[in-house]
């Protein structure tokens, strides 16, 4: 905004005498550094403390919880209590445990549904995004923008609107309480986001590359699979991780559409809060185990998420 800047120059007072100015800027600079790092550390604390609290609580006895002990070894003696209760502590991991069996089956369900839905959404979404980025379509009155809007508008459907019809529909299709049913539904919920990210990704790849591929005798699909798709991998990783996060954490549909076989981790966590009352160490262990995979994914693949959303924010 050069215009705004020019205006600013008029309103700012003339600069102070030089020496005084110098000392003052130095002081303000140190102060602003302090403020910046203070704010950063404060927010880092806000982000990390609940996670720290949950992880440490899984090693606490009831007494440590009620007395508000916070620091392991100084305040309280850590113990595998919480992990033993879900059969994942070192001394119980080899034995049989019904709690662990349940946890493992829920974990498996979560992995299969979230990965399955993310892969399916990525395939469908990438194809559609490439089409919308490269070709002009006309379906009756619908042009490219209308088709894109049609896909994006699925984003606004609140889960409550779809929940009941899906309950009845899945009952008829024998998809209730199955992983396939959840995969189809989750694919629907993340497809708009995948299309959004992938279209921007494809738009950022020059169309001349496709044309060069045609000149070399590749078909439309050949050019897409062999030339364009390898270049779009960063966007695909970002879209995949975002869908994974959304599917892994989804609770509403899972709670309504699954009962025994296809129950996912969030449903298990939610059901434990009600039944076990104040059994904190096992809840903490369960929560830790439920969030651990995505925390690890987040730490390792953070830059892909940022870069993927960057292409999205650019438009």
């Amino acid at each position: 905004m050069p215009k705004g800047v020019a205006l600013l120059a008029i309103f700012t007072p003339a600069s102070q005498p030089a020496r005084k100015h110098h000392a003052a800027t130095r002081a303000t600079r140190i102060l602003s550094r302090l403020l910046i790092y203070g704010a950063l550390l404060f927010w880092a604390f806000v982000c990390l403390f609940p996670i720290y609290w949950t992880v440490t609580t899984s090693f606490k006895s009831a007494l440590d919880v009620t007395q508000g002990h916070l620091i392991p070894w100084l305040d309280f003696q850590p113990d595998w209590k919480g992990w033993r209760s879900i059969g994942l502590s070192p001394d119980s991991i080899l034995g049989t445990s019904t709690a662990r069996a349940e946890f493992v089956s829920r974990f498996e369900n979560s992995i299969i549904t979230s990965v399955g839905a993310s892969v399916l959404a990525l395939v469908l979404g990438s194809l559609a995004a490439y089409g919308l980025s490269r070709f002009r379509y006309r379906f009756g009155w619908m042009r490219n923008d209308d088709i894109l809007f049609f896909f994006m508008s699925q984003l606004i459907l609140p889960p409550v609107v779809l929940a009941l019809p899906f309950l009845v529909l899945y009952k008829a299709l024998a998809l209730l309480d199955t992983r396939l049913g959840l995969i189809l539904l989750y694919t629907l919920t993340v497809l708009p986001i995948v299309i959004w990210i992938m279209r921007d990704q494809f738009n950022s790849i020059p169309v001349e590359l496709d044309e060069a591929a045609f000149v070399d005798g590749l078909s439309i699909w050949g050019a897409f699979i062999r030339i364009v798709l390898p270049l779009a991998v960063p966007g695909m990783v970002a879209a995949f991780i975002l869908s994974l996060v959304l599917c892994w954490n989804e609770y509403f549909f899972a709670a309504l559409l699954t009962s025994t076989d296809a129950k996912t981790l969030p449903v298990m966590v939610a059901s434990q809060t009600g039944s076990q009352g104040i059994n904190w160490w096992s809840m903490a262990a369960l929560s830790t185990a439920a969030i651990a995979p995505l925390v690890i994914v987040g730490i390792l693949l953070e830059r892909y998420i940022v870069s993927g959303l960057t292409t999205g924010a650019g438009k």
Partner: protein
Amino acid sequence: MQNSSPVADDRHHKLAPHRVLVSRKNAGRALVVLASAGFLLVLLIQILHSIGATTAGYTDWRPVLYAYLLWAIAFGIGQVTIRGERGQRALFLFPAVFFTVAVVIFPTLFGIYIASLDWNLSSFEGPHFNGLNNLIGLFHDDYYWNALRNMIFYTLAVLGEYAIAFGLALLLNAEIRARRLFRVVFLLPLMLSPVAVSWMIGKSLMEYRFGPAATLARDLGWDNPAFFAFPWVARLSIEAMDAWVSIPFIMIMLLAGLQAMSKEVLEAAKVDGASGWQSFWHVTFPLMLPVSVTVLIIRIIFKLKLADIVINVTAGGPGGATDTVSSFIYRVYRDRSNVGYGTALAMFYLLLIIAFLTVLLRLSKRWTQKVA
């Protein structure tokens, strides 16, 4: 119906002249007709079976699903054989379109039908037609309107989340050490499941007797730190948890926008003697407006679906003070088994959302044009 037009500009490929043989065309048409006939046949058998007209049929509707899948594949192959390269182009779009149509259009239409039924799963009578009674009942349901009023609060709170997220994005964009470390840490809450968060924060950190947050509040002089007992405190607590999970998303989008901004403009402002605050208000903020509007709209869309945390922490209490529309309808389904009424509430909510977002999109478009 479908047709990709030969119009081309610099962005889009030109269509190579390509003739499709008449015999191939006919084969393609035959395939599509055959597949459609097969699909309709399976559908007809199942409809007749389920209304009891015939005994032959399948135990469930799954075969219809498979028939739909086969039909979609046959339709795709047919398009390629009939239209050649145009068909190949359309093939990119087909999977997503057929998928979305199957899983959205049908359930939504079906939902409108359910919404007109008096259908309680716990009663023996089964569904029967109720006309507009659900809709009329909705207007007298104080809890529903209460939930809608709460949604106004939650939606407005997005502005607060946005302000905090903007501050964090500016911090991360400043010249700091260990930027990547801070970025990872700030992003972490986004990864966590709202259900786990509702236990981690809502049910243990904010626990009345010995949660650290309650202890801290006591030390700060609040004698009775019950986070979920008074309407406004409870609402704010729920909002704080939701904000904790979703601020990272807004922050990352804004950070991306900040990094894409040209440094020269800011330097020009500095040369002109603008203070940090002035260059933010007169340069950074206006330049960030398009990104801001996008991220705010996405965030509002997600906020309107808020349910998990409310269901798991307060179940709408105290006295419906924290209820969102979604959590309220969830209870209508789960506890009262009132399927027809719940769906009517959901459909009405969808209409409100569509109206609200349409207005919002219009306004935001006009607003960004005026400022930028």
